[in-house]
């Protein structure tokens, strides 16, 4: 039987050093944020109180981190054993994605020193969508750490603990499927209350369902992209066959998503907004073309055997899902009254720093921990 092994090799490669430098620069601006306030490093304002930290680091970030969720769904709920080789690396990216999102939330909230108020029963507001999202993401981040713990324990030869954890693992995995189902749909519900401030192409009472399907899609797309890159970069065994199977599931989901999306807009009577030729109409078209093209490509069986097609289709779907989130949180959001927002340079650098740290930890993990199956 094949088993997972550390990939080994040097940690401080040239790309790693570049990520390291970006992370250092972002630390400087973070210092500024904590001494002078959010206004000193961001372009956030009273009209656009949420910028790229929430939109990218949290909303898009956790959707990119749905690989673990989507893969667990296939393996443990639909009992598709053949996908098991992808599980560990998918859990790792999910773990890093969610942990970094939690860090981003901490940096973004103004009154971080009392962030724990949400968890106090006398302060927590059960009517609030954000309360549910925050609680769910916090618990899920813990669950992911426990799901990944055996891999870390293996490095330190703690077999007893590993065995104990393995006994309750089924509960963790079940939670790991339930919690993202809850909060990934709620990330869509969050914008319902924005009402007239969100452009009708994105405001819909179906946002929770659309976000949920989209999150599962992004999960599979990320797994495909990540496997393709790792296979190339670290010369791992070829996984094209298994990825081709995932691609089939992905194309099916994307088809359902598109039908729902278009029907919803048509039924609400906003179909003509798509072809108005303005920025919002056009960006909606781009968002959906990035989905339609890969669906058409992947619908052809022979294409699902070509690594290049699989990689590019998955990448395109990742972008489409990212755009959906950017559009419904920022581009399509207009508070009126002349407010506008474009992220400030330090704001972007902090986001890049978070991504850099995420990648650095990922590289360390796969080189030092048994994550990938080696031939």
């Amino acid at each position, binding site marked *: 039987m094949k088993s997972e092994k550390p990939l080994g090799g040097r940690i401080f490669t040239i790309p790693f050093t570049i990520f390291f430098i970006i992370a250092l620069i972002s630390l400087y601006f973070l210092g500024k944020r904590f*001494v002078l306030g959010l206004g000193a490093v961001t372009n956030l304002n009273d009209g656009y109180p*949420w910028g790229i930290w929430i939109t990218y680091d949290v909303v898009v970030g956790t959707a990119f981190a749905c690989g673990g969720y989507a893969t667990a769904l296939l393996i443990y*709920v639909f009992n598709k054993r053949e996908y098991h080789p992808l599980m560990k690396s998918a859990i790792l990216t999910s773990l890093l994605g969610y942990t970094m999102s939690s860090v981003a939330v901490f940096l973004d909230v103004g*009154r971080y020193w009392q962030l724990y*108020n949400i968890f106090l029963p006398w302060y927590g507001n*059960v009517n609030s969508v954000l309360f549910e999202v925050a609680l769910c993401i916090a618990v899920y981040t813990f669950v992911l750490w426990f799901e990944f713990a055996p891999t870390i324990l293996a490095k330190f030869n703690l077999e007893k603990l590993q065995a104990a954890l393995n006994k309750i693992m089924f509960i963790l995995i079940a939670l790991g499927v339930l919690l993202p189902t809850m909060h990934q749909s709620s990330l869509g519900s969050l914008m319902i209350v924005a*009402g007239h401030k969100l452009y009708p192409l994105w405001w819909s*009472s179906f946002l929770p369902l659309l976000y949920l399907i989209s999150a599962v899609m992004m999960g599979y797309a990320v797994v495909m992209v990540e496997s393709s890159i790792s296979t190339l970069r670290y010369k791992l065994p070829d996984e094209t066959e298994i990825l081709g199977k995932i691609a089939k599931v992905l194309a099916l989901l994307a088809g359902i998503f598109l039908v729902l999306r278009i029907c919803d807009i048509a039924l609400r009577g906003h179909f003509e907004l798509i072809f108005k030729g303005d920025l919002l109409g056009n960006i909606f078209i781009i968002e959906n073309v990035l989905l339609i093209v890969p669906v058409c490509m992947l619908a052809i069986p022979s294409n699902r055997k070509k690594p290049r097609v699989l990689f590019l289709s998955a990448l395109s779907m990742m972008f489409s899902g990212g755009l959906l989130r950017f559009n419904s949180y920022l581009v399509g959001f207009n508070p009126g009254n002349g407010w506008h927002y474009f992220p400030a340079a330090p704001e972007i650098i902090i986001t890049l720093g978070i991504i850099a740290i995420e990648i650095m930890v990922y590289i360390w993990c796969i080189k030092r921990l048994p994550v990938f199956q080696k031939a």
Partner: protein
Amino acid sequence: MEIRRRDFLKVVAGTTAMAVSPSLSFASSPGKKRLPGAMGMLYDATLCIGCEVCMVACRKANNLSPQPTGIQKLWDNPKNLSFETYNIIKKYQNGTGKVKDNEINGFSFVKSQCMHCVDPSCVSACPASAMTKDKETGVVSYNPEACIGCRYCQVACPFNIPKFEWDSPFPEIAKCEMCSHLQAKGEIPACCSECPTGATIFGPVESLLIEAKRRQNMEPGKYYYFPANSLKSGKTNEKSASKYIPRIYGETEIGGTQVLMLSGVPFNKIGLPDLPDRSYTSISENIQHTLYRGMILPVIIFGGLTYLVAKNKNNNE
């Protein structure tokens, strides 16, 4: 091993029910009703002369620092509501701008402040219950001890009222709290007590609605008495009635507000958005409550998932 069709269907049905049912149960639960003891304000743009005394009064009552703008920064002149400005008078102008309360070639003033919604988005949105609606008066207030600074109240508010302290390392949210500290002493909000023309008056929302309807039935050009400061003050001003837009802003908008507005110029021209009668809050709360009432649905799904995972995991190993 094949997927068991029945297991597959159970999970699919469960998870889709979680996401679909709320979207379909759209029609139920119409949102919150007006409180019988709700206190509010009536702002009548046709009576407002733009003197901005209410803005000065608001500053004094709430200890807010002046906001000088322009090159010399000589006097208080805020451009917008902000962390230091809870109340502002703005001007609408069209064409020659000569006739008061005319949409074309006219002008009008408009007061901007927290509307104290019947079903407030900020209260529903706040994850830490920092925004609360008083159970008696319906005044919406803010508690910095609870606030985590997430700013979801700002995203949620249809009128963009809550303001954040962007340039502080220890920021708070700020907005009009209808001078609840003065109301506690039996006084009325500062902007109402200082308004010289009766453009802004204080009172129980039910009585204010009756007063607003009385004004809408007035014959334009004829002289009438208008109460000043509050409905109970006994003070009145005599003035010829203007031609009103036949609508009381806040009567039904977004489930109703406790600050009501009358105007001679269409409301969307003076910066008040066209809003549906149903509050957005009731839509999102409906979704949340359908899914998470008593956590029954999540627990059932969790049970099903645990069973499936335990079974499949054993098969795998």
